């Protein structure tokens, strides 16, 4: 009980600190802090449509959060979720445009496999470089991000892909075999908001990843690699392979953003569709402390803040969307003091004979 409750409590404190500092800034800007909170709350959860949009963000943030978290368990800092999700989305669009007339069932299967494979491949490059050539994953994933966006920028200009109906940098619309949004009951429920049934993936993934990391041999090997590579190697595990596997899984998770985007939202690849989901995923993973089961709520929280940010611009005179970013940043910073906080609480509890039963 203590094991779960304590981190939960200190996370709650970090959150409170973020909101508190946000409120102080709001107060300095001559705005009522409670009004600000109310705006964010209403914007994120105010209507079915708003909730749907929040869920759309939460979907992408959770997936990139998984991506960062899984890599982190192997001791790798995956900055590359952004490139991985861009690659995956682009590839799904390209494959979908190449084979337009398949059955919707096959279309979905193709989309899933292409999305996961493309993301995994893109992350796998960094994994291989790290494991077998010692190339630092932070550098290589940043480079791969840049390569991915440059590659997308070029491919998008090709006449076979380019959407000529408008001036946006995007691919043509995929056929209804892939773009299954119309048949999605969840889309109707959320009043045609950007979300779709793909949101269910993240709940499934939370359980799958938790079981994989904490209950299987390979998952254990990955975590042992992250904890102590030398000991893992001496114990007969294969840390190099585990790093590659971790990156492959991380990439596949980030790649699944493509499902919500292409199959569930726009039916095409729009250059720059992601407001840097990959980087926000790092914050989500931090907030969730890399625990897969904690990632969906963490992602939901950040999604509310991200969604609410726009309405701050509309509803207030002096506050802009940047306040939401400040709150996010303070929350992440506060997280870094939470181990210290937990220790203090634990010491306090010991001194006051709390939790003696445990």
């Amino acid at each position, binding site marked *: 009980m203590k094991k779960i409750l304590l981190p939960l409590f200190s996370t709650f404190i970090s959150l409170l600190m973020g909101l508190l500092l946000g409120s102080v800034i709001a107060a300095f800007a001559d705005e*009522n802090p*409670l009004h600000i909170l*109310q705006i964010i709350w209403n914007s994120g959860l105010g209507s079915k449509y708003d909730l749907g949009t929040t869920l759309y963000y939460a979907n992408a943030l959770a997936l990139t959060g998984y991506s960062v978290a899984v890599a982190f368990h192997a001791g790798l800092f995956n900055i590359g979720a952004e490139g991985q999700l861009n690659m995956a989305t682009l590839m799904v669009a390209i494959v979908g445009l190449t084979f337009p007339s398949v059955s919707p069932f096959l279309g979905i299967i193709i989309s899933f496999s292409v999305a996961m494979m493309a993301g995994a491949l893109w992350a796998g490059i960094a994994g291989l470089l790290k494991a077998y050539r010692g190339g630092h994953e932070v550098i290589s994933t940043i480079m791969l991000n840049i390569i991915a966006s440059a590659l997308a920028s070029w491919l*998008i200009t090709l006449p076979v892909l380019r959407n000529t109906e408008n001036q*946006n940098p995007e691919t043509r619309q995929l056929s209804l075999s892939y773009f299954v949004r119309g048949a999605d009951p969840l889309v109707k429920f959320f009043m045609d908001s950007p979300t779709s049934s793909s949101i269910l993936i993240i709940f499934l993934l939370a359980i799958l990843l938790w079981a994989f990391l904490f209950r299987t041999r390979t998952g254990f090997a990955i975590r042992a690699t992250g904890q102590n590579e030398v000991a893992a190697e001496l114990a007969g595990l294969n840390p190099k392979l585990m790093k590659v596997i971790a990156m492959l899984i991380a990439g596949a998770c980030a790649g699944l953003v493509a499902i919500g985007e292409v199959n569930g939202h726009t039916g095409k690849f729009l250059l720059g569709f992601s407001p840097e989901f990959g980087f926000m995923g790092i914050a989500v993973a931090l907030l969730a402390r890399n625990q897969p089961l904690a990632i969906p709520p963490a992602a939901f929280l950040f999604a509310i803040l991200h969604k609410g940010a726009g309405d701050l*611009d509309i509803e207030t005179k002096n506050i802009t969307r940047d306040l939401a970013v400040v709150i996010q940043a303070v929350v992440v910073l506060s997280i870094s003091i939470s181990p210290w906080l937990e220790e203090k609480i634990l010491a306090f509890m010991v001194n006051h004979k709390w939790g003696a039963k445990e």
Partner: protein
Amino acid sequence: MKNKFLISVLWSFLFTLSSFAFALQAATNSAAKVPIRVGLILDKGGKDDKSFNSAAYLGATLAEKELGIQLKYIEATDDAAIETMMRSFAQKKYDLVIGIGFAMTDAVKKVSPLFPEVKFALIDAEVPGANVTSLLFEEHQGSYLVGALAAMNSKNKKVGFLGGMDVPLIHRFQMGYEAGAKSIDPKIAVIINYVGVDSSAWNNPAKAKELSLTQYRSGVDVIFGAAGASNNGLFDAVEETKKLAIGVDSNQNWVKPGLVLTSMLKRVDVAVLEVIKETNSGKFKAGTVRFGLKDKGIDYAVDQYNSKFFTAETSKKMEKIKQDIIAGKIKVPDYYKK
């Protein structure tokens, strides 16, 4: 025991929070509602791009001052958020929502039918609808004019074009510019560069500066920048090399006095002001409006910062070309009708 304590603390916190929130909501709802409310959604360049978005913002703030309307603006830093913001405005029953730039096309297409009582205006792209007005500009005509002026001022017979995002709209600028320059000297070389292919190209002064410097070093002596906020990179480059630049959309002559030959005015400010005025007086008209040289929706800027370039002779020449275009004597090639 302690769990109960924690939970009760949490609940009391939430209760206070929500009760305050409700009280506030009640307060805001009862606020008086007199003037029309206008929501302005700017492109990625943001209101300080000194160009396209600045012009739109200027028009809107002018309307705010003149008509006493309620204005709110948002900068779209995230493509996925455009639709959400547009809905946000519409849901809050704004009277008029203005989308600046073609990136808003899909959002207007999707949101406008859902909110028939809200009026939508869209700059630079056409969307049909009973509550939508599309505001288009004849950019190629103005580009032809500044192209001619550039050729007149080029000693090396080499002029440059710096486009923002590689899209048909900017190709329209480019084509008019080329034709204008060639009308003065058929053998003149026109060097063309684009900053990028996605919407970040509107706001990448660093790359724009690199491209401009490369052009200037290769002998180009006038560059026409049609790149939104990226134009700031062009202006940095022109200051370093002391050559000439041409601004776009807003009057940018003041940015580097004496180094900006002129600015091709695309009076987004006028268009925005007009549409707000019409809506305010209940005369909003759906459909497409085209602004060109005739109605001064498109023009070139002459003021104290660049008057030294406009000798009597030059002014006369330019005025003649302008009148010829309006009269249809000069046919400016249009990329859209290619």
